[in-house]
């Protein structure tokens, strides 16, 4: 720890911070554009100037490039500092188009916020502005408005330093300088969307979000990306006023949430843009019985009867369950409790090959598209837990040894291709839990519509064994329910009297005796964030 004085307050901060970080640490925000903790220090926007007094000598200097030092006296509000900072702002606005009314970044724009803060209301500009390209697609995902760019070089440094390929650059000199693609290159790296988060203004915008919503109509919850086993921390930004029962896009965008141990400030484009399944037209919304809509009670009653009858006739081994490890720990726990402990079903497997092949990259993406394989393993649903693997179960179905099959979160294409009859023809019944209509859904004896991760709270355990909680952003579509609730209800129909009030109660039960799980403070990460993008540096 070191001690310094910031605006006449004596404060203590951890070692190794620069002055800007130290001030932020104690709640003093120093305006800045080019500095970002995940990138090298450029020191070029000159916005972060402060007065630094050391050994009795005062100077105005950058807070981003000066280390916080014991005994330093920092002032962010002297008349000279305020003049210098206002001066930078004025210069930035000189050639800026001031088209905030049509800019998606309005509300999240540093330039706009600092302008409001420093109240430079009368423009002294008395000359023509430069004009530069306004709508330039820098790559498949991102659009650039050169006139809004403040030339902070964050996006350039991201491509160079974090992804490791030069795709953007600042060309020309003087105030005719512009940020644009490297000649002959596109911004097509698999992390391209991060430059939109980094861009302090509305120069780089997601094609996916452009002109969709004003940001102040969005709310956000903390979540975990479900699209690979890294478990990147994210925010789900959703519409405040959306009537969720109407079809349409409720989740408006995904933003990375800082976690130094997992994803730092970044997420990949697959995670960022891959949320359309949440509001897809193919979502399952109503329980099904023999191809027709049914209500939950009836469908579950039927499912309970099928299970009981088959087990009576053919023994517990005549039923098997295949559950994809995309479900939460709470889902897996309840499935195990019902199928293994209550019903003594011997063959339960989560070892379903994914039909999607992923290749790990140097940053975050792993080669495992399943978000919770590790959690399933920890709970006893992993491939190493003895018994048959998924392929062997399918073979047993084909051999007529299994009469009833429960399939959750997979369409089995990776195991049977499109030849669904090769198994349905051998089964007395098929119970399908799914959030998306798939090739099994319409052939299911009983179809159970499941909520997706954005629709209920829960936990995933990532590839490194970190237990991470995600929260609920929106209501389940239609009558869909979280998977654990489905098993909880089904257990009731099978005569069990379990009382799990909510996901937290389930988590408490599953974490007993597991230190990695018990240490998660359920409430610490709970709650809806006000404001749109709190981790914005």
């Amino acid at each position, binding site marked *: 720890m070191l001690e310094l004085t910031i605006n006449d307050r004596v404060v203590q901060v951890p070692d190794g911070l620069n002055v800007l970080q130290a001030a932020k640490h104690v709640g003093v925000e120093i305006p800045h554009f080019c500095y970002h903790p995940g990138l090298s220090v450029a020191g070029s926007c000159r916005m972060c100037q402060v007065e630094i007094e050391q050994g009795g000598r005062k100077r105005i200097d950058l807070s981003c490039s000066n280390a916080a030092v014991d005994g330093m006296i920092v002032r962010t509000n002297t008349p000279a500092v305020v003049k210098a900072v206002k001066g930078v702002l004025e210069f*930035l606005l000189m050639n800026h188009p001031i088209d905030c009314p049509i800019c998606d970044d309005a509300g999240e724009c540093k330039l706009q916020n600092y302008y409001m803060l420093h109240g430079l209301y009368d423009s002294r500009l008395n000359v023509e502005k430069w004009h530069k390209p306004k709508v330039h697609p820098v790559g498949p995902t991102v659009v650039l408005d050169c006139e809004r760019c403040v030339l902070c070089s964050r996006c350039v440094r991201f491509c160079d330093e974090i992804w490791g390929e030069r795709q953007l650059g600042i060309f020309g000199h*003087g105030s005719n300088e512009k940020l644009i693609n490297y000649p002959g290159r596109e911004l097509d790296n698999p992390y391209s969307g991060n430059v939109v988060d980094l861009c302090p203004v509305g120069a780089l915008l997601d094609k996916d979000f452009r002109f969709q919503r004003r940001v102040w109509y969005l709310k956000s919850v903390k979540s975990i990306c479900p699209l690979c086993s890294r478990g990147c921390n994210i925010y789900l930004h959703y519409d405040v006023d959306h009537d969720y029962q109407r079809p349409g896009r409720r989740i408006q965008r995904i933003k990375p949430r800082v976690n130094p141990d997992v994803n730092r400030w970044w997420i990949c484009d697959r995670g960022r843009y891959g949320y359309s399944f949440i509001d897809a037209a193919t979502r399952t919304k109503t329980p099904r019985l023999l191809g027709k809509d049914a209500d939950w009670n009836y469908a579950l009653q039927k499912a309970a009867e099928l299970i009981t009858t088959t087990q009576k006739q053919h023994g517990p081994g005549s039923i098997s369950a295949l559950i994809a490890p995309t479900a939460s720990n709470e889902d897996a726990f309840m499935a195990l409790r019902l199928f293994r402990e209550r019903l003594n079903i011997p063959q339960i497997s989560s070892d379903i090959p994914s039909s999607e092949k992923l290749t790990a990259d140097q940053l975050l993406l792993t080669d495992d598209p399943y978000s919770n394989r590790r959690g399933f393993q920890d709970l006893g649903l992993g491939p190493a837990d003895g018994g048959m693997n998924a392929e062997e179960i399918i073979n047993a179905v084909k051999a007529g040894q299994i009469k009833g099959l429960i399939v959750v979160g997979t369409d089995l294409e990776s195991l049977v291709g499109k030849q669904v009859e090769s198994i349905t023809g051998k089964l007395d019944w098929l119970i399908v839990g799914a959030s998306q209509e798939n090739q099994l859904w319409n052939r299911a004896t009983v179809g159970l519509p499941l909520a997706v991760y954005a629709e209920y709270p829960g936990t995933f355990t990532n590839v490194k064994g970190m237990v991470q909680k995600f929260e609920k952003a929106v209501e389940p579509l239609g009558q869909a329910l979280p998977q654990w609730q489905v098993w909880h209800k089904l257990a009731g129909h099978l005569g069990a009297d379990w009382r799990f009030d909510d996901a937290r109660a389930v988590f408490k039960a599953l974490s007993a005796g597991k230190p990695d799980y018990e240490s998660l403070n359920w409430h610490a990460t709970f709650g809806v964030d006000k404001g749109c993008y709190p981790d914005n540096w």
Partner: protein
Amino acid sequence: MPEYKLVSKNFDYPDQPELQAAVSRGAYEQWKRVLSEQIPPDKITEEVKTAKLRGQGGAGFPAGVKWGFVPKASRKPKYLCVNADEGEPGTFKDRKLLERDPHQMLEGIAIACYAVDIHTAFIYMRGEFYEPQRIVQQAIDDAVAAGLLGKNILDSGFDLNVIIHMGAGAYICGEETALLNSLEGWKGWPRLKPPFPAVVGAFRSPTVINNVETLSGVPHILRMGGEAFQKIGTEKDGGTKLFAVSGHVEKPGVYELTMGSSLKELIYDVCGGIKGGKKLKAVIPGGSSAPVLKPEEIDVPLEFESMAAAGTMLGSGAVIVMDETVSIPQIFMIMARFYAHESCGQCTQCREGCTWIYKISQKILAGQGKPSDIDLMLDLADNMNGKTVCPLGAAMAMPTIAFLNKFRGEFEGMMKN
């Protein structure tokens, strides 16, 4: 006040660029002596410190002190970069040194490298210098062939590879850290300091950067001894300085004077006074970045500290003399245009400020200025001055402030018309 020819003493021999001729006039004598007597490197650095040899590229930093900053125990290679970018408007003295006496500079380079234990020297040369490039490359080749440079120089075991790197025409690449980036193949953007190049320079290795003229003085220090060299000049500024005088004087050109000579005498005695007997109006004493002086202010010693005390700078020694026919608002516009064009664009204030002031200066010339424009420009200059990565922002701001304050009436006069 006479000229004092030290580094320019062989400028008038047409054959001086040839090795034989140069050697016959004493070239490489000191370099050979350094190697044969195995003079300790530290002793050379000390001698250069004693000589009070100041950086001649503009900033005037004592050369020996700079060499002393290079960490001795570096496990990385160390480099010398010779700044031959000569981009400051009004400056044309390094060109002479390169064209007229390349071996003098090469000897200085060799001695400097020996003193700092450097085995690779880059000469970063202004892109337009085709002729100097040809001449210096020939001189390098000849010196290598004669065993004075290259591998195992004169059987001493000391290697020195000298490489010319041509710039591409950006003024900013004369700034030492922009030069390093450009040399490495990046955009010529100045780097944040610290770290200083002596510690982290070219290719992240310790690097000495010196101007052509600075290095050309080094052989003379070894020849006459540091103290004698210093005594030629003043207490803090040893030796001599080349002045490139242009504009309305009878005899423009490059002149070598002892440090501390008078600016007034340079103009009136050495250069023969104002052309055609006209009245002097203004003098820019150290390249376009140096604040302008009025006729009554030019009786100052040409020396780094005295010039600073007079509110201007010695800079690169480029003296631009303007007589009564000159329109200051027009000169100001031309200067502003230069900086607006040459700002590297990295820092907000310099990128936008230079252009803004340039555009206002155009308006004033077009008769569309308003009296408030002068205070606006002064305030913009204040917001730029000393608040940027490199001194270019200040190099625009300081002359702006001087022009506007010293010739305010002339600017205001254009507004009334």
